[in-house]
């Protein structure tokens, strides 16, 4: 093919242009740390990265919810454990009261006082709050889950938090399932305590004895209900912890996937850029030599 000045300069400038574009792209990749500078950089990768980022964002927010769920469950677990232990203390005292021939009015009164004293403690536990929210009121928004007389003000729907374990996890139990009363079908522990105290205050005798036996049955029901509630809270805690681990693993996997698609591999890009720079310099040299050298220079 015949070489003419315009064909030569056009070709050289096209070649420089294309090298400049390559270098510019690599420079941008190194400066930004990503190979996906625009959607057209790699449409499939960009689409996948957007999908992964969307999943990652959900996992991150569910992982943030894990913290809330753990706070709730921590409070609920501690309150349930103390409730069970307090009920067991009451049961111990009640067992002593049922011990025939050992007690007199004085010891009954002392027992009545001790048991009466647990009421405030249990009310305090029943009205445990997370921030401003009562954790044993179900999803009802009330100031106190249990009123000072021991009436349940909440509802029977447990509050749930979505931690990414499939369906949302209950992070507490409705108070009536721990303390009885409400719609639970179990006599409220506060009523049980009130009955025990009344029977003890009546002093030893056959009437109070049979009353206290009935109270023991009621207390046993309260205790087994509270133990079931504590187990439920424990199971939820395990579920939340498992979800947290799974979230962390998935998050790592997604981050790796995104990084594999988007991150600049400096080990690859640097030598490529170096090679491109060298050939660019060679091209510049060629242009500086090729264009001005003509026969005209040698004519005097």
């Amino acid at each position, binding site marked *: *093919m*015949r*070489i*003419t*000045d*315009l*064909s030569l*300069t*056009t*070709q050289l400038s*096209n070649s420089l242009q294309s090298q400049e574009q390559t270098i510019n792209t690599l420079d941008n990749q190194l400066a930004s740390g*990503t190979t*996906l500078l*625009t*959607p*057209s*950089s*790699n*449409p*499939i990768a*960009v*689409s996948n*990265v*957007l*999908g992964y*980022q*969307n*999943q990652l*964002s*959900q996992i*991150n*927010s*569910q992982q*943030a*919810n894990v913290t*809330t*769920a753990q706070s709730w469950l921590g409070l609920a677990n501690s309150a349930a454990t103390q409730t069970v232990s307090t009920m067991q203390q009451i049961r111990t005292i009640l067992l002593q009261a049922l011990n025939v021939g050992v007690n007199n009015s004085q010891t009954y009164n002392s027992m009545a006082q001790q048991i009466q004293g647990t009421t405030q403690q249990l009310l305090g536990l029943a009205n445990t709050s997370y*921030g401003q*929210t009562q954790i044993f009121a179900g*999803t*009802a*928004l009330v100031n106190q889950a249990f009123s000072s007389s021991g009436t349940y003000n909440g509802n029977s*729907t447990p*509050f*749930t*938090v*979505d931690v990414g374990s499939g369906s*949302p996890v209950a992070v507490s139990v409705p108070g009536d399932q721990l303390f009885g009363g409400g719609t639970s079908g179990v006599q409220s522990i506060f009523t049980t305590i009130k009955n025990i105290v009344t029977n003890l205050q009546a002093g030893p005798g056959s009437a109070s004895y049979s009353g206290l036996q009935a109270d023991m049955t009621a207390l046993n029901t309260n205790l087994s209900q509270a133990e079931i509630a504590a187990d439920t809270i424990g199971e939820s805690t395990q579920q939340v912890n498992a979800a947290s681990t799974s979230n962390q693993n998935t998050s790592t996997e997604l981050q790796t996937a995104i990084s594999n698609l*988007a991150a600049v591999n400096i080990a690859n890009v640097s030598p490529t850029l170096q090679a491109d720079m060298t050939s660019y310099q060679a091209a510049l040299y060629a242009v500086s030599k090729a264009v001005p050298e*003509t*026969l*005209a220079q040698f*004519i005097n």
Partner: protein
Amino acid sequence: MSDLSLQIAASAVAADQAQLDTAANNLANVSTPGYAQQVVNLTDFTPSTSQGVGEGVQIQSVTQSTSALDEQQNLIAQGQLGSANESAQILGLVQNSFPEPSSTALQSQLSTLWSDISNLATQPNSASAQQQVVQDASNVANTLNGTYGQLSSISQQLVNNLGGIGSSSSGYMAQANQLIGEIANLNGSIVAAQNGGQDINALSDQRRADISSLGSLLGIRTVSEVNGSVTILSGGIQLVSGTNAVKLQTTGQPATANLAVETAAGNVLPSGGKIGALLQAVNTTIPGYQSQLSNVADSLATNLNNLQSQGVSSAGVPGPTSAAAAPPYAGTTLPSIFVDNSSSTTYTTGSSSAASIAINPQLLANPALIATASGTSAAGVATIDPTTAQAMANIGQLSTGPNTIYQSLVASVGNDTAQANNTQTTTQAMANSTSAQLLSVEGVSTNEQTVNMLSAQQAYQASAAIINSTTTVLNALLAAV
């Protein structure tokens, strides 16, 4: 006899001078677009004497080295390149409206919305969490409006570049009409000059440059006529025939996806060149993206509004279609989250909904009006039931949700742009090669011209020596008399 030598030398000097002039002219036009190098065609004088001695040299013509085949190839390539360049440029602009992946664009704003709703679900009665969600939703609506608006203004700018709707006298339309007029005029001048035996090289150069420019604008082909004129065709429609120029104008409009270029007689030109790429973008590509963006808005608004309507707020206000709102309930119900615009109370889906989607001002004023609780919650009873908020937080993961639709929109913008860039690269390579081919035939080589110049110079010197020598001989002869 010596008289003849002088005559031969004189013809040689004239031929050498013509060659020097031609070389100078070629060198002067070494980088003139459309210039085809000129060649002096010399022939020797047919001897009229019986001795067989020639009678010198004569300039038969000065012609251009042209190749009709290479020109045609280059013209096609220029048309394709014009189209590819324009497409790549337009899509590059469009792509700027979708700066993904990033931590600030729409995808990320949607993610923030879902995260904050998820956070609201853990504290449904928190005023700050409610406020945050409403603010996020407002940001998403603003970004949808802004992106749609950017696409509209690109489209508007392109229509302006074309010359406006129904126009023939500005922008690309003006350029095309001017070139068509010039080519028709040049056809007339060339035919007349050729008939009058005058030089047509300069006129041909100009016509060649005009045809190349028109080819890049419209995508055309040419037919060379015997009389020296060139017929210009776009598809089967004649744009220039002899001295007849067709006037082009735009017809239709982008809103009805039928903006096109037609002749004054109403023949619509096939799509080609820069103008073809521009029409494609304005009629199809950009409205397509706007429609997909509106699908994102529709999915976002429909999903959130439905859940809002079926749910109950943490203060116990029921959504209009919730179980809690059933009679005997007769109180106020929750407003829609997204509405058509800030003065509307309902949301309508459609292909331009992304332009107008807005957060309901009622919610902006009172973020507590967002539904968080299940629709079966009791009306008028404050609740921290998070069921509706939890469902809202999962909209982002729906297979027909706004995130999924937006992802496929970004993927199609990316694919289209990447494809346009690839087409541009291949078309550029092809145009470079056809152009190099053409330039190698028609272009000027400095070295070649310099060699021609030197050879003409030497021949000139030789002819001068002959004149000198003949004069000496004649003088000697005269002295001898």
